[in-house]
């Protein structure tokens, strides 16, 4: 799965969990500061991403995923 495909799936998850317009979900955006995704929604996004990509995202790692790009890279590297 390419980074582009991961981003596409991630956009769908972020929209489903936090109601964010997929157009807004681009790699440089910060989940918390730009997209207004709170810490509990981040957990829900992580849980769905784990199911979708077959990757483990423990809470201590999740805290490091500040931007959408961080998440894409983490998923691409760890799946």
């Amino acid at each position, binding site marked *: 799965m390419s980074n582009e495909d991961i981003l596409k799936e991630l956009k769908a998850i972020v929209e489903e969990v936090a109601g964010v317009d997929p157009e807004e979900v681009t790699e440089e955006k910060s989940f918390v500061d730009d997209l207004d995704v*709170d810490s*509990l929604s981040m957990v829900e996004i992580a849980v769905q991403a784990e199911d979708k990509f077959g990757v483990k995202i423990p809470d201590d790692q999740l805290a490091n995923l500040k931007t959408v790009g961080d998440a894409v890279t983490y998923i691409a590297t760890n799946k």
Partner: protein
Amino acid sequence: MSRPRLRQNTGPAGTRLLGFGSAQGNRVVTNDDLAQRVDTSDEWIRQRVGIVERRLADPDQTLVDMAVEAGSKALANAGLTPTDVDTVIVATCTMPGQIPNAAAQTADRIGVKAAAAFDLNAACAGFSYALTVASELVRGGTAGRVLVIGAERFTDWIDWDDRANCIIFADGAGAAVVGPSDEPGIGPVAWGSAGDLVDLIYLRDGRYVYQEGRTVFRWATTQIAPIAERAVELAGLALSDIDVLVPHQANLRIVEAIAKRLRAKGAREDLVVANDIVHSGNTSSGSIPMALDHMTSEGRVSSGDVMLLVGFGAGLSYSAQVVVCP
């Protein structure tokens, strides 16, 4: 010569719930009230936990006071008098001091004579655990009718400067009466614990309730729906048979996440979901029976409704069963 043979009790074919009651702390505490002490806001609290206001006990309003009020109301709502029950179980994890227990004095003050009375601690799963014990005591012929009460006074265990935790917990009690029945009204329990996760919810410095919010949220939103499903299976029902879902009122977003998962597995869209936390806060073992009592008074549930109860919390502990609304 043969040895003497013991006799053991036998009980009725089934058990059911007979009535609910509840009591709350006398003080209404809003999010704005808390924001005067800690760095938080009404909007932040509503968004993260779904609580608009909670009820806290007056300084002279004890855990046992609330247990007595909830228990007495449950007996009245069941059309019973105190002498109609012989056993009182108080589920609690906030009783100040271990000796004496809450149940004996609660039973005495309600007027249950010489009650078999004991406390049970399974934290926020406590009511569901106690309901199971009560039902089995009746089914086994040990008890005639049992008064089951979940009662908590978190005020004593909160660090009012801990903004992550002080916004969640509240004071109150809920109660239910369990008695014999020809038709089964309390299904088999699906319960257990995850003691390896003990560090997620505990008393910090032995004094203040503390939880790893994010990790508890992940556990509750992913691991609890399957327990609830298991309880439905044990009762011989399908998720589509469930009319009412009453999860422990931990956090509105956890409640909604559990409902969402169960709907994805076949629960109905018109499933009634308890949201008592909005105006009551999280009262741990009190939350499920309190929600049942409030929903009955408000007419949100009706006699005969099939209700799925699921408790989960410190331990970690979890417990679920299907019951029929009295």
